């Protein structure tokens, strides 16, 4: 099997969904061939196959983009709307939160809203305070939607297919630094179910619960600590909300220790919710407090050394794990 990048994985998943279902279409800023197929090329080559109505390049109008996706979904189509950078969701939160997420419930189940909102973000590329935030907690706090982020190319392909299949809104977060990651291509029709975490590394001393780009840091740290005799189990949530509680709790019940890790700022982050849930449900098996790592509680800074100081570091992960297992 050939290797594919995450960009290719997403493109393949969207391409095959569009080929199978005429109701699937993409809309967003710069997505069509005329603009080069998206700033990160995820929709490259699709205009040539499906035409400009199904790869709709839009004005810079996030509210109109998501509103159009909502309306088309109500009419039975499956739009994939792109919000170029995650911070721009600030422009269209009303459409996402008050409409996309709630229309199924408020209509008593009559109008589900099957839309995928693709968006990209990431700390570590020098984009500064308005182009870097991970805002998954905003959406995880709203009933009626799935929040998804892949940490590798194979999962990206499988999660995107499942997101397009889903009959509810999905916020699909792509980390800029992950687009170039390669995996063995899982092949056509591959799906990773929503709401199902992966355990890319098993371990017995502590559960490190994370998602997205920080899975890479987690795996690296886990590999290093293995040599020091600390066995770290890495849980990659893949779906952040509603998350795979069963896998998380089973892991923590086994290891007795937990550390949550995300790039988003720590206060009120998803790690807080997961930690609280673990403490309620795994109390008798816990050997110590659940620990949390997140980004610094300030805007993402520009200068490289500031940005690197802002983001959770591998040293910080190692330090927290050692403190938890008593080997600090």
């Amino acid at each position, binding site marked *: 099997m050939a290797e594919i990048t995450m960009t290719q994985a997403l493109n393949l998943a969207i391409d095959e969904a569009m080929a199978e279902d005429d109701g699937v279409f993409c809309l967003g800023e710069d997505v069509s061939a005329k603009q080069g197929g998206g700033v990160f090329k995820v929709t490259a080559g699709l205009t040539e196959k499906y035409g400009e109505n199904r790869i709709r390049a839009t004005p810079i109008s996030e*509210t109109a983009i998501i509103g*159009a996706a909502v*309306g088309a979904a*109500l009419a039975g189509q499956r739009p994939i709307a792109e919000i170029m950078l995650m911070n721009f969701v600030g422009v269209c939160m009303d459409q996402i939160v008050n409409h996309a997420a709630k229309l199924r419930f408020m209509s008593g*189940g009559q109008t589900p809203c099957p839309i995928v909102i693709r968006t990209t973000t990431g700390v570590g590329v020098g984009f500064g305070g308005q182009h870097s935030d991970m805002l998954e907690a905003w959406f995880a706090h709203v009933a009626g939607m799935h929040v998804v982020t892949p940490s590798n190319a194979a999962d990206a392909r499988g999660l995107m297919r499942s997101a397009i299949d889903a009959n509810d809104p999905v916020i699909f977060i792509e980390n800029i630094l992950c687009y170039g990651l390669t995996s063995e291509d899982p092949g056509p029709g591959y799906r990773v179910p929503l709401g199902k975490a992966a355990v890319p590394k098993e371990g017995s001393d502590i559960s490190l619960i994370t998602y997205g780009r920080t899975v890479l840091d987690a795996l690296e740290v886990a590999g290093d600590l293995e040599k020091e005799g600390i066995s770290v189990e890495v849980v990659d949530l893949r779906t952040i909300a509603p998350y795979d509680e069963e896998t998380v709790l089973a892991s923590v019940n086994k290891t007795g220790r937990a550390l949550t890790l995300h790039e988003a700022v720590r206060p009120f982050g998803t790690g807080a919710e997961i930690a609280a849930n673990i403490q309620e449900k795994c109390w008798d098996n816990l050997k110590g407090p659940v620990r949390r790592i997140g980004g610094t509680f300030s805007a993402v800074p520009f200068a490289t050394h500031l940005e690197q100081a802002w983001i959770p570091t591998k040293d910080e992960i190692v330090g927290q794990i050692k403190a938890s297992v008593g080997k600090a």
Partner: protein
Amino acid sequence: MAEIDRDKLLDIYTRTMKVNRTDEKFRELLMQGKVAVMYYCVRGQELVSAAAMAALEDDDYVVCTYRGQGEQTAKGIPIQKWWGECLGKATGTCKGKGGTMHITDPDTGIMVTTGVVGSGLPIANGLAMASQNNGDGRVTLVSFGDGAANIGGFHEAMNMAQLYKLPVIFLCQNNRYGEHTAYADHTDSPNIAARAEGYGMKGVTVDGNDVNQIYPAMADAVEHARSGKGPVLVEAMCYRMMGHFFGSDFSYMPEEHLAEMQAEDPLPKLRNVMLERQFTEEELDKIVADIDAEIEGAVQHALDAPLPDTDEIYKDVLEETA
């Protein structure tokens, strides 16, 4: 301008009175304390809604607002389900989970009723985009007030609709107030329809109290959108004869404004047109009596209907919880 066909005129009259009698009944129930819910009165705007719905086909899509009773009942929503929803009952269109501000009935094309001013316009574009994508020939009509014309989404939606030539009709019911703020205190331009030109769109301002103006304008707009020429902004001048919502203070509305709107009341004007077109008093009264009887039955049905089960709060959140 060609005279409105007699059957169509009767259709508009019937729809108008359905809206009006529903509004009267709702206010009566609220006054009597039989129900206690948020209700946004449509007195004064009945004809605009009725004429707009009469210009659509049954399977066309409608997006409306919390002040959407007119569009909903005039489009033909089953009124037992409508009253059930307004009273928060299990028999409602949305099982009592949407309420007066979120009536949804896809079977009659009432796709979204939004409680957020201006949010319907971008969604209407999407419904119209689906029709453009799949060629089903439907048009989408979105109704909103003059206040909504100052929301960012209005601008985004108007530009996008014209860019793609979407089959959508933007119906601005200019009732002279955005919540409690008079038109002149929220907007300096003389009308809303002139904004259409800025988007390259067709826009018209018409008297929403005169059936001979509002219906032909709506019919033209629908024809324009359905034939692929793109969206139209229709601004229907009308009056919101009650306050923002039932029971809200409307002492801020000046005396001369109240007098002006009484003089322009669309209902006596419509009745005169009907009489001029040789409909008899008896015929017209019979229509109203039949509507009243139907409403009476629907209200009683809703009052007697069961409340939703409390476990409904866990249902319809995601497909998995359906």
